């Protein structure tokens, strides 16, 4: 008896627990025909209305897009757009008329759209100094901005290629002869204005370089209030992008004609880019976006199709349960 208790206390028998014995309660779903069909049906049921909803929402968005870069180039310069855009003496004002197809309810967002413009190029994206933008004491932090970092007059604020290439076309909108107010407030993200661009950082030495890139800045306004710059410096993900220019806070009625007076300053000719101005309303889904709804519908449709096929398959040719003769190695062994 003594010996047995002693051996017991020294027993190396593994302790029983559901964990160590790998017997934890588990949910073991498997792909039964029921599951397969149900999941395809569910996806189809979810996606089809979602797609329709998105399409409907997208359909309700009214969008006016106008490409103006070519049309705003005087014919005399059509072979040499470069000299037109780089000259200080050419008249860059350009007038476009747009027709409102349907009623647009405020707020109407004004965008400029650039094409073939690589704001996501590594050299471009890196060429900025976040420190400098936040803090006037860090104005010298321009290492990343080269070559647009400074000159004899001191560091450039804001430095770097991004700021330097600031978009500088301007738009004015008229309904008949009456100018439409453009609200340029709150076109940038709140957090950018508050935390990334200092309210006590003022542009310095900007566009003062031998090469002038894009637009200039008002040196009396702190960066946090230069919303155009903030919007521009939020680099776009893809080479075709829109950026918010402003908002129109009045409704535009259907079939109204709007005149846009454009200052065509920004050079996209040299790299073969396009410039567009876009007016768009937005709802819960954002702007006009048919792809989204179509995708939903496509996936829903595919699933519906597959579900039907599987149902037919299982109704017409149900598979006998667990027949191991399906297995390849069984067949091989039989042949031996």
């Amino acid at each position, binding site marked *: 008896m003594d010996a047995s208790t002693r051996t017991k206390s020294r027993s190396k028998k593994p302790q029983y627990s559901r964990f*160590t014995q790998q017997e934890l309660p588990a949910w073991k779903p498997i792909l039964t025909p029921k599951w397969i069909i149900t999941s395809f049906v569910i996806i189809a049921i979810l996606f089809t209305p979602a797609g329709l909803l998105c399409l409907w929402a997208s359909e309700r968005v009214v969008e006016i897009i106008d490409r103006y870069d070519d049309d705003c180039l005087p014919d005399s310069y059509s072979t040499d757009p470069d000299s037109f855009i780089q000259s200080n003496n050419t008249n860059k004002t350009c007038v476009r008329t747009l027709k409102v197809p349907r009623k647009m309810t405020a707020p109407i967002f004004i965008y400029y759209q650039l094409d073939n413009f690589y704001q996501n190029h590594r050299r471009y994206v890196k060429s900025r100094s976040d420190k400098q933008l936040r803090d006037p004491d860090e104005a010298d932090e321009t290492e990343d901005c080269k070559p647009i970092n400074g000159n004899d007059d001191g560091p450039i604020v804001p430095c770097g290629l991004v700021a330097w290439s600031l978009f500088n076309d301007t738009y004015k909108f008229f309904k008949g002869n009456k100018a439409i107010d453009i609200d340029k407030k709150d076109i940038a993200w709140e957090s950018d204005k508050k935390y990334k661009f200092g309210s006590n950082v003022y542009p310095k030495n900007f566009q003062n370089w031998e090469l002038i890139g894009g637009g200039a800045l008002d040196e009396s306004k702190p960066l946090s209030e230069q919303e155009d710059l903030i919007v521009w410096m939020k680099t*776009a993900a893809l080479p075709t992008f829109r950026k918010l220019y402003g*908002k129109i806070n009045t409704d535009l009625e259907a079939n109204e004609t709007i005149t846009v007076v454009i200052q065509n300053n920004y050079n996209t000719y040299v790299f073969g880019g396009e410039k567009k101005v876009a007016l768009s309303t937005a709802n819960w889904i954002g702007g006009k976006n048919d792809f989204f709804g179509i995708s939903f519908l496509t996936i829903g449709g595919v699933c519906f199709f597959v579900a039907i096929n599987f149902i037919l398959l299982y109704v017409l040719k149900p598979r006998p349960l667990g027949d*191991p003769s399906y297995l390849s190695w069984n067949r091989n062994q039989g042949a031996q």
Partner: protein
Amino acid sequence: MAFGRHERVQFSKIYSLSCFRPSTRDEHGQIGQKGYSRVVYCNDVDNPEAVQLRYRGNYVSTTKYTAINFLPKSLFEQFRRVANIYFLVVACVSFSPLAPFRASSILFPLLLVIGATMAKEGVEDWRRRKQDIKANNRKIHVYRDHSFSERKWKDLRVGDLVKVHKDEYFPADLLLLSSSYPDGICYVETMNLDGETNLKLKHAFDFTASLHDDDSFRQFKAVVKCEDPNEDLYSFVGSLSYNNNQHPLSLQQVLLRDSKLKNTEYVYGVVIFTGHDTKVMQNATDPPSKRSKIERRMDKIIYILFSTLISISFIGSIFFGIRTNRDLNNGSYRRWYLEPSRTTALYDPKRPALAALLHFLTGLMLYGYLIPISLYVSIEMVKVLQSVFINQDQDMYHEETNRPARARTSNLNEELGQVDTVLSDKTGTLTCNSMEFVKCSIAGVSYGRGMTEVELALAKRKNVEQLDAGNTSNISDDHAVKSRKSVKGFNFWDERIMDSQWVNEPNSDVIQKFFRVLAICHTAIPEVNRDTGELSYEAESPDEAAFVIAAREVGFEFFQRTQTSISLHEFENGKTVDRSYELLNMIEFSSARKRMSVIIRNAENQLFLLCKGADSIMFEKLSKESQPFEDQTKNHINKYAEAGLRTLVVAYRPLDEVEYKTWEEEFLNAKTSVSVDRDSLIDAAAEKIERDLILLGATAVEDKLQKGVPECIEKLANAGIKIWVLTGDKMETAINIGYACRLLAQGMKQIVITLDSPDIKSLEKLRDREAIAKASRESIEKQLREGRSQIDLATSKSSSVLFALIIDGRSLAFALDKSLEELFLKIAVDCSSVICCRSSPKQKALVTKMVKEGTRKTTLAIGDGANDVGMLQEADIGVGISGAEGMQAVMASDFAIAQFRFLERLLLVHGHWCYRRIAMMICYFFYKNIAFGFTLLWFEAHASFSGQPAYNDWYMSFYNVFFTSLPVIALGVFDQDVSARLCLKYPLLYQEGVQNILFNWPRILGWMFNGVLSSMIIFFICKNSTIHQAFREDGHVIDYEILGVLMYTCVVWAVNCQMALSINYFTWIQHFFIWGSIFFWYVFLVIYGYINPLWSTTAYRVFVEACAPSPFYWMTTFLVVVSTLLPYFLYRAFQTRFHPMYHDEIQRRRSEGCEEVSPGELPGRVKDKMDHLSERMKHSHREI
């Protein structure tokens, strides 16, 4: 390749290490020369000459690292992996402007991964260190300053005199001086060295045996000259000079460290080897490192990924070069906003080739996410945890020996699921190696009514009707006998012998002599249990114990042994008398001699030589005349062998005084000679006396099959695993054992290859070696070809006849020859079972090697003894049985189990699971990294291949570490396709591993393709749905930051849901890890978004402010995730319908309720438990 070389080195090592190395006896002459230069000044540690020798102390360290070298050494180990070097280089380059990310974000995961691995190494080493500290601080009595005082083990020095008490371990290798016994013997248990539990006898020299009291050591001075430290446990060469005399030392005088003093109150000894010089430490080598096939294939996948990485970087850089080149257009710069006129070489349109080259390096870093940095460390962690599960499995715990299964290495877990051929030892592996005396043949009469398991199997085979009437009655008796009395090692029952009835037998004098020989001619030691007064025996082999026990049960109880005598209680004329026999000489057993003899003088002053040995030798030694029952005995021996029993022949010879005297002189001379040919001298002397023997009879002991062996073998065979048995037994025994353990079945066609043909035998008589060899080879070739044609014939008729190949050791030697090997292997592979009998340890290893290299499939060798070590190390997986025969096999093994039957669970359950887990884990690992890495490439294509990553640096660094790694680990540790019960019920499931269908190239490439597909779906849906319009009601558009978050969210969701979709086993752990990882991504995004924007840069408040309020963001996530999963789901839906895998079938059966436990059938665990209980009850009955 380095790996291949490593393996070869291992192989060559086996033979030099193992015990069957011939001992060279000419070594005594070399003392003092190279390799034999050690000098020990006994009891004189402060002798200036001794100090000068600077032998190591007794401090032992088994740790891999020390505090100082830990960092460099473990780092070096880490960076031996190609992938880690790549990441290190990337981390170094990341400080240059080439890097697409911040250096810290590259360094962090690398440091984390390296740190985790190093921490694991450190913890393991710390455990070893703690053991070392314990060992080093054990206490020992050491003679210093003329008295014995207690000191720590580590303070011992060479030459110290120590006193070791009963049941203490020897602290170092000692030279035995004297013991509590007057004749200076002591008993030693060497369990820790070779695992043998029997006691070994050690002798001190007569002239030192008198050293006893502390005072006598005062004057004791001696010098030992001996071999240098080496790992050979079975030889020792040295000499002791004492009082100006030289005495040769042998292993008889050496007590090895870590063995234990037994049955002896105390011994005195001199330290000759300390610390790492001791034999046990010299033997402590790590088990050979083996790598699994999956891991080797994984390396290839890594190479594929590396080439993918290089090629996409290359393509990227070409495009980048073109784009950059195009920026310079007839002297004017096109993309002016990049300011190409003043740029570094990285983007210089004037030197596009250079820019492209540099970009290539950037690309290598950018797409580095294709190489899963955490793969190795994850796999390692997973395997360790898998091993824990193997160790913890209650169903592989053996109650009787108190031994759980042990995974000694975690490298090979998944290899367990791919075993194609099992090569098994027989004795101790299939059988218990606890011998039971069941039959004997005395004076030509066979005694013993018991039926062996083999006989039962034979009976089944031959149909019951054919049995003679006498035997059938025995079967019914059998149970009655067993319940009446049960003695371990004794399963003999015969009313003619037992209960002293033998005296009434016609040949009672022969019977008396027979059992007397069994009681005297052995090396066992009696042990009296103090509490019960019961006698038990410590014997060198279980056979021997069985004989002594049998003699006792019949009435010849051996109860005392001294150096010179053996005493028995003998039953004579109806009463018990004590008899003592003077033990004059003992000629020990050796595998070459195959016999042992003792020469005794009885009370009547008669001299006898008592001898027992293998039949093949013994019949030659019998005297030519008057062997009245030689033929009957031979007959019986053959019958016994057929019944699967081990037989020995027992004989004796009366000696006359004169002959003995002359012989003894010669024998003593031979024994004391130190010349080269001492062994052959002894053999020659023995040969002279061991002749003209008079036959008494033969014994038969049964080596019982282990519990559950036939069932296990049947299961393994059903699982499609081929089983080869490699045994040293006779062919008949082997075949019968084969039937008993269901390796051979009734319908099987046997192809027997042997050299026992009359032609060869007649050639052998001519003793022309070359002719024999030539004829043998031809005969083997002919037999092999015949076998081949038989198989071909059966195959062509497409009949389902199964073949079994049986080959004996001598034929094997020829069959393993280069020219015949291929033919042999081809036949062997086509046979469902193979038995190699009479095979030597070396042949076992060679066969293993041949199977491994010939079939290129996974081999598993299982064995329990030192003779299996070569085989275990040669096989892909070595499984040691931690049974009675010691720990040597276990030490050389990768897995240790207590019983053969656990192999079933180890392979079919754990092996299958581990294989599946690791295979799926690796596939999934590559999937998730490709899915992620390729989104970067697609984004690149839209960023003019400039090397701008799509995501924030830290999202990427955390990808492998936090957002996707834990679910994979959960998969690797916990996933089960079907439960353990079903794994065992459907053994064919195991073929998934053997055929490697979960990790074949189509599947791997399929997963990779799925990864690329996922990345495309993710990127292109994200891109097209967000292209330029507003994504919120307030008119904001998607920018670089938001697209990054959106895509990354989709990736995290998609890969985690892909995981959820591809497993079908969810415990709370899987749920927690999968959904937790997704949830953690959002948590991370929120927290990271609130860190100072200088740190979080593009992630600053991006989720809270921009993404979370936008329904578009959530809907895109939903759309993308569903679309990404759809291809795989469709594939699986079609697969389960049209081409289901075996586990799909079983899962379906289970889910449809076909696999409920029927009320009649108890689950395995409960049944086992009940078996145990009933067995325990039986035991307690016996004790009462």
